[in-house]
């Protein structure tokens, strides 16, 4: 258990800068997620905190104490690996005990026994202590691996994509197992993932990393509803958010949004209109998630005609890419809808549910959820 501070961390491999000027704090017992696409630099950051790689610039502190020149083995960090790395020939009991029988962390046998049993009851492993890893389920293996890391009372847990190698079904279940155990961990945790559902489900806060830099740090709600940039918006959700061009136009003394794609003008919620007005922009980018796109198989007032271009089944839903004259739009429909390729479809847009970005800098301006959140807090 420790407060972890990372200040202006930079790491270069030859001429390429893998991580650039990264700073963040992990509160005591916080579950902090580093989230980003492959190659963003997430694992590089984790490795520097573990002491596996040295930073070129910047500082890493545990409870205010600099760790930069402390060896990995002296930092008391616990890593949980993707493949759990349990000893196959030892029982679950022996596996959990093993981390208290190493040279650096040796404990008396009665302490070991007490600790193993305490952790086992915490992780619901009591009945399984005599079994070998091959005789327990994947979820139980994961819990045993966590238990082995927990008995050491580490300063910080480091987890690098622990669920990435599982198939979709198991990954879903394991994510929930991990979430169920979270409040029992009682340890500061840094979790690396490229799966947005893991990040949103597990993280107290999420740092979104792109090309070695932090785009945004915030709670799941903040990064989902108020993404700092269009990049962040695109990273969350099963179906990638639609970013449509919009033009702001004054009509009858109110500011309206015109979408060239549908060639219609839309009323804006008051707060959104005020902030957009104040920004002084004429052009904006409008981020519309699938839920803000309605569809119909028949022509309806206010709907734009398009054709189904691709169908991508994603579980119990299907992602449709629809080609309209003004461009392509993605939306999700239930799996029971089975349109044909090139079938005609009609779309309508709920711009009040949109997230508005500066069309040049691609940075966040405003969204409706922002006001809802503020009013809720009052």
């Amino acid at each position, binding site marked *: 258990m420790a407060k972890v501070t990372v200040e202006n961390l930079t790491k270069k491999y030859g001429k390429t800068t893998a991580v650039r000027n990264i700073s963040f704090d992990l509160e005591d017992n916080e579950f902090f997620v580093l989230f980003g696409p492959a190659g963003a630099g997430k694992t590089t950051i984790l490795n520097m905190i573990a002491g596996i790689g040295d930073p070129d610039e910047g500082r890493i502190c545990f409870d205010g104490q600099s760790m930069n020149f402390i060896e990995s083995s002296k930092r008391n960090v616990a890593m949980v690996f993707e493949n759990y790395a349990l000893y196959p020939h030892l029982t679950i009991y022996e596996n959990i005990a093993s981390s208290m029988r190493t040279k650096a962390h040796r404990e008396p046998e009665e302490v070991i026994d007490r600790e193993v049993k305490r952790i086992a009851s915490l992780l619901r492993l009591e009945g399984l202590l005599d079994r070998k890893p091959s005789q327990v389920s994947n979820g139980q293996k994961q819990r045993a691996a966590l238990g082995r890391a927990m008995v050491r009372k580490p300063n910080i847990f480091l987890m690098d994509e622990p669920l990435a190698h599982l198939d979709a*079904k198991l990954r879903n279940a394991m994510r929930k197992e991990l979430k169920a155990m979270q409040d029992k961990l009682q340890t500061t945790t840094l979790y690396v993932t490229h799966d947005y559902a893991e990040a*949103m*489900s597990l993280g107290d806060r999420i740092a979104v990393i792109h090309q070695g830099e932090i785009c945004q740090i915030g709670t799941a709600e903040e990064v989902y509803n108020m993404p700092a940039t269009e990049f962040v918006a695109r990273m969350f959700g099963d179906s990638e958010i639609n970013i449509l061009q919009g033009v702001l136009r004054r009509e009858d003394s109110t500011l309206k949004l015109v979408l060239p794609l549908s060639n219609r003008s839309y009323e804006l919620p008051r707060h959104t209109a005020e902030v957009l007005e104040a920004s002084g922009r004429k052009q904006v980018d409008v981020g519309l*998630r699938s839920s803000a796109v309605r569809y119909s198989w028949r022509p309806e007032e206010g709907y734009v005609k398009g054709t189904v*271009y*691709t169908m*991508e089944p994603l579980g119990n839903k299907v992602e449709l890419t629809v080609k309209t004259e003004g461009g392509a739009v993605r939306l999700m429909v239930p799996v029971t809808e089975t349109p044909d390729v090139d079938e005609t479809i009609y779309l309508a847009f709920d711009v009040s549910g949109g997230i508005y970005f500066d069309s040049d800098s691609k940075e966040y301006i405003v969204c409706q959820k922002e006001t809802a959140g503020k009013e809720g807090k009052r």
Partner: protein
Amino acid sequence: MNHLVLKHIYKKYSNGADAPYAVKDLSLEIPEGSFVGILGPSGCGKSTTLRMVAGLEEITAGDLEIAGKKCNHVPSKDRGVGLAFEEYALYPPLTVYDNIAFCLRAKKVPKAEVDQRVRAIAATMKVEELLKEKVGGLSGGQKQRVNIARALVRNPKILLLDEPLSHLDQKMRQILRREIKKLHNEIKCTTILVTHDQMEALSLADYIAVMDQGVLKQFGTPKEIYNEPANVFVADFIGEPPMNLLTVTANTEGDGTAFFEMEDGSCIRVPKRLQRNIEDKGRYIMGIRPTDMALTDRRDFDWECEVDVFEDLGEERTISIRIREDFCTMVTQEIQKYKKGDRIHVKLNPERVYLFDRETGERIGKGGYYGKDVQPQRAGGNCAESSDTGSLSL
């Protein structure tokens, strides 16, 4: 008319008396011009089945009929089948044109006709610009297009595709899937696609044959497979997030109500539709998809339970209830937040509660979704009927 018929097909790879069957008593009737997906986990016998149709594997027992004619011993080249495998198996030193033309030239088709057919099929598969290229330099997606073009150029009666999209990245897979669907709509050639990817089968096929360990578990339209799974295997295999499958014991009360008691002692009300199918103290497996459960208030509920894990995933939220070692998960669009330990009241969509025999895994009390009993489980003779129910539901 059924174009391709498999009658009680068995396949053994070795002769020993106790050698395992790779395919066991497989019967399928495939209508002309339809698109059939054979779906199952690795080792379920799907590729073996395809290879028997192609004539690449001998059939141990049973009959294979193509267009009404028994074909067990007809050589592969005379069966009128076109084959495209996952690995493209193109001739690397030859150009795209020569690869596609290869089998026509081998059959001594006149030069002018070869040229005309190669160009026509290249246009269909959108590889016209590549005809002069060597195949070595093509991308995976282009290679697979050429591969399918080569299979199609001989005007096969049946097109066989073995995991044609597995090698490709997601973007390319999406595009080629669209192409394959369009192609089939155009040429209406009877097509069999072998895949382990349920999403691929659900989006492409008119009918899906689900196999497990050499045995056909269900044959039906994608909607039948999804909405009316014939057994626990199909219910568990199809759908993402997966169907919740709970081990329950039935308790019927004197007043006609009934409850399912779960392993942890909590109780779920049995939908009326299923009450006539259950016996008191009978043990069953109950299935319900995460999207068929909804939150309700205490006035009218089927299940009172406790939240173990709540996840807010932006667009939707999941609530998981723990039953011993497993979770029962529901998906909701409601914005309300919950935390561990909250009591909730859940209503199940009564039409979408599935009941399975605990011993055999077979479905009990079918027919909620279609309003009539469909029996897609055995394929023999049921294809026409299946297609009826399929079109009714569309």
